[in-house]
């Protein structure tokens, strides 16, 4: 006889698994003698539990629940006292199998059924395979998407690489250096970007978005919106005359608003494709109907079409890799840090551009100032700050904003401190942190190095920033010394965290994949299957699955590509686990169980 013990968690979440339903389902599973809630058995009294096991003649015990692992040791002890095999206490953790809410109650039932019969869920719930279309779509051309595309394309398979903005590269292209090696980010990334641009197996779809996905694993029809670029990619020679003459300006997206760009522009000099595009929102012609200077000066006839319209296209692919990345936290949400109020409070991404030799000040650090038209920008004409405060965990590890750790901020903050010191040797740099998370290979050593470079590292979260004597006063507690610190500095850098894209949930719905509590895409298994989703043929890579640094994003990009190549080589892709009907799982579990009994 098998006994099932439910460890019920009353978390009160709406839509949580219905344990009463699971409880009555469990009673009907063949071979199951008794079903209890953990509160109804003497769980913590091994002798009493052993007596119960003997009385009910239980040979196996299944502990079922959200995360039931913690009660297992009590039961193995009781099993030994009862004279049974302690190995016969098995866990059915619903969360582990992705049954996190009541819409997935069938999966929870399937897990329960399989484990009660001594069959592994993955075996019984193995989806059938179906033919796969050899082409692949990669959504998002940041470092993870680029890596995945190159891996597949170098395996001689066709890849569509789709990107929402006018160039590939993503956030990594904006960074000055990488940690902990202090490699120049552009020097690593741009060769890869060029390779993508020239690869015969990669079709670039920049300035494009997914509109809809139909079909099934192995054969997806993806509707794509090609936003009007208004400059013909084929004929544009990239001469730049149009930009020179264009009268309209807007904050540069690539430089995070630290400088202005024209309405017809190239995102940055190494952009791929290295062609111009027109931003409709700032173009005078599109907005007001007159101008057209760019058309007049363009040396190529018909290259610029100011009246071009958005177009739609449809492609067929067998696999989709989602690598949509993240959105930086909006520092303006935290009033007390004064971002948007005090010009010298800047974000870490702004500092990345400011420090970069290709940035608005060619790598020298200056105050933010107003230009003649009143735009706040960074220019070499304003003075240079001499002291800096870098505030960690802005928008991260905070119940009021995002409660998770964004994982990269500690290290990039240390890196920024180093880069400031490199540019301004006698500058004072203060880091304010809650906990220093230097968890990766070489990271602890990097932390040590930055400390030795004379950066003042203070344990204590900054609570508020105010203006005092024309400088910025940073108020925090020095936890390690029980003191209050009111430090006046010239410039404050907010180390903003990572957030899921605003439309991540929309994309997830289109694709049928799921998002977790925080909005990141959910992987099939946290430990053993971090790139697959519960939908066949759809894998995830990079930060869209959860905050991670460049090496991890690259690794996951390669891993996703491996899954795709595996299916293409085999010619088959697994259907979605989530589409497996419960009856089928039950049937297979029974088959396996019978065949096992037959063997023994």
């Amino acid at each position: 006889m098998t006994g099932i013990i439910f460890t019920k968690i009353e978390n009160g979440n709406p839509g949580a698994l219905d344990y009463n339903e699971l409880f009555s389902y469990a009673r009907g599973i063949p071979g199951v003698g008794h079903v209890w809630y953990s509160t109804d058995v003497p769980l913590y009294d091994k002798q009493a539990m052993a007596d119960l096991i003997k009385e009910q003649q239980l040979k196996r015990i299944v502990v079922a629940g959200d995360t039931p692992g913690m009660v297992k040791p009590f039961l193995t002890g009781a099993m030994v006292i009862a004279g049974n095999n302690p190995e016969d206490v098995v866990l059915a953790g619903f969360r582990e199998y992705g049954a996190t809410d009541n819409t997935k109650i069938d999966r929870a039932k399937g897990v329960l059924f399989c484990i009660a019969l001594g069959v592994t869920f993955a075996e019984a719930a193995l989806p059938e395979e179906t033919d796969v279309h050899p082409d692949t779509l990669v959504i998002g051309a940041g470092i993870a998407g680029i890596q995945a595309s190159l891996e597949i394309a170098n395996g001689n398979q066709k890849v569509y690489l789709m990107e929402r903005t006018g160039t590939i590269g993503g956030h990594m292209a904006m960074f000055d250096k990488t940690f902990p090696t202090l490699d120049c980010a552009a020097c690593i990334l741009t060769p890869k970007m060029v390779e993508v641009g020239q690869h015969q197996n990669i079709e670039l779809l920049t300035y494009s978005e997914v509109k809809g996905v139909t079909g099934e694993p192995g054969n997806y029809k993806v509707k794509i919106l090609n936003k009007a670029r208004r400059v013909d990619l084929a004929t544009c020679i990239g001469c730049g005359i149009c930009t020179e003459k264009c009268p309209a300006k807007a904050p540069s997206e690539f430089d995070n608003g630290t400088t202005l760009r024209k309405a017809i522009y190239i995102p940055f000099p190494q952009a791929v494709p290295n062609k111009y595009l027109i931003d409709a929102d700032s173009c005078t012609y599109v907005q007001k109907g007159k101008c057209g200077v760019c058309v007049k000066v363009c040396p190529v006839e018909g290259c610029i079409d100011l009246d071009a319209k958005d177009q739609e296209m449809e492609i067929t692919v067998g696999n989709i890799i989602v690598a949509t990345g993240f959105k930086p936290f909006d520092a303006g949400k935290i009033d007390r840090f004064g971002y948007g109020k005090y010009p010298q409070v800047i974000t870490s991404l702004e500092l990345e551009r400011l420090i970069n030799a290709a940035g608005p000040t060619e790598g020298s650090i200056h105050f933010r100032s107003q230009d003649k038209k009143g735009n706040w920008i960074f220019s070499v004409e304003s003075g240079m700050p001499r002291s800096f405060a870098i505030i960690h965990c802005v928008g991260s590890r905070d119940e009021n904003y995002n409660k998770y750790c964004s994982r990269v901020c500690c290290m990039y903050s240390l890196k920024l401190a180093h880069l400031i010191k490199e540019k301004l040797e006698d500058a004072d740099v203060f880091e304010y942190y809650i906990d220093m998370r230097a968890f990766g290979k070489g990271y602890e050593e990097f932390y040590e190095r930055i400390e030795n470079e004379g950066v003042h590292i203070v344990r204590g979260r900054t609570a508020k920033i105010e203006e005092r004597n024309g400088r910025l006063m940073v108020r925090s507690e020095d936890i390690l010394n029980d003191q209050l610190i009111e430090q006046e500095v010239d410039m404050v850098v907010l180390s903003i965290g990572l957030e899921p894209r605003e439309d991540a949930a929309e994309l997830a719905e289109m694709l049928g994949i799921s998002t977790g509590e925080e909005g990141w895409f959910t992987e099939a298994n946290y430990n053993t299957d971090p790139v697959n989703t519960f939908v066949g043929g759809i894998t995830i890579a990079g930060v869209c699955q959860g905050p991670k640094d460049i090496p991890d994003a690259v690794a996951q990009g390669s891993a996703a590509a491996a899954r795709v190549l595996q299916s293409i080589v085999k010619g088959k892709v697994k259907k979605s686990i989530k589409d497996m009907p419960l009856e089928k799982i039950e049937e297979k579990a029974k088959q396996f169980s019978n065949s096992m009994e037959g063997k023994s």
Partner: protein
Amino acid sequence: MSTRVNPGLIKEMSQYGMGSWNACFHCGNCTAVCSLTEEGILFPRKEIRALQMGLKDKLATSVEPWLCYYCGDCTETCPRDANPGELMMSVRRWLTAKYDWTGLAGLFYKSVSALIIAFVLIAIGIVAIGFVKDFNHEAVMHFGHSLEFYLILTVFTIILVPNILRMFYFTVIKAKVNAPFSSYITAIGSLILHMFTQIKTLKCDKQTVRWLEHFLVVMGYLGLLVITVFLDWFGTENRIIIYMGYITGSLVFVFTFLLMISRFSKARELNKYSQPTDWFFIIWLFLMGFTAFLVRLFIDIDLLNDHFWIYMVHLIIISQWGMLLVPFGKWTHFLYRSFAVSFANLKKAAYKEKLATAA
């Protein structure tokens, strides 16, 4: 000497208020966001640490909880929802129990039923005395007036003065604050100022309205106390005293009513976690002002003879107030808070001297 962690303290404290104090990861946000913290006077994080470690002595000898005026900034911005503001409030209740040598304050904080039984017993006692005196108006009112007088005297000498001395022992002597003698003299000056004005509240952000409400209640209460007890409001013929009584009485019940609404609507951070003792305190203050007002009104429009019950109600309220809420309840914060400012000044002076000798 090494310290022993006492996990029971956090359990004990949760009888005095609500908060997930174990969630605190010691980022120091609360201390730094507070407008009242200064060099040498740091809270609430240090108190949370002491609580988590179960350092009872450290917590009992700290004067800092009394320096917090509960603006709620720390709780609102706490990245862990650990509710540091409510911890300071809970520690104040706990300290009130610690300072009280009779132990009754702690009993009433922890057990509402004990408090209610005491309330009922007092009410029965007053009715019984009325019965003995045959509900003779003059005799009962005379008794009531002397009761007020002797009650104040007794509570002051037997309960309040010893408790203040205990507070001094805890926060200055046991905490080993070695302040120079001159600082004691300046501390007395600040005591009077803060007792009557609670002026420090104004240092908190956006607390002006709240301070004014509280100030008017305090002024009304003290005025009413002087006018009824020492100027015999219910017996006097002096018009000025009568009018002053009406003004102070209405100040008390109008503004306590407003404060009751704030507690009820929970709009402000400090009003979100009311304990039964908070409710008793504010409702009895309201009832005291209101019944006093009615008694004098009934005298003036010649209704008291037919409606003597209103005086009996007033007397019950006053007795419950004076015998329970003043010595063992929230009333004591009036004294503890003002003395705390002075004791904190001693601590600051000692801190400065220590820094000076170190330098």
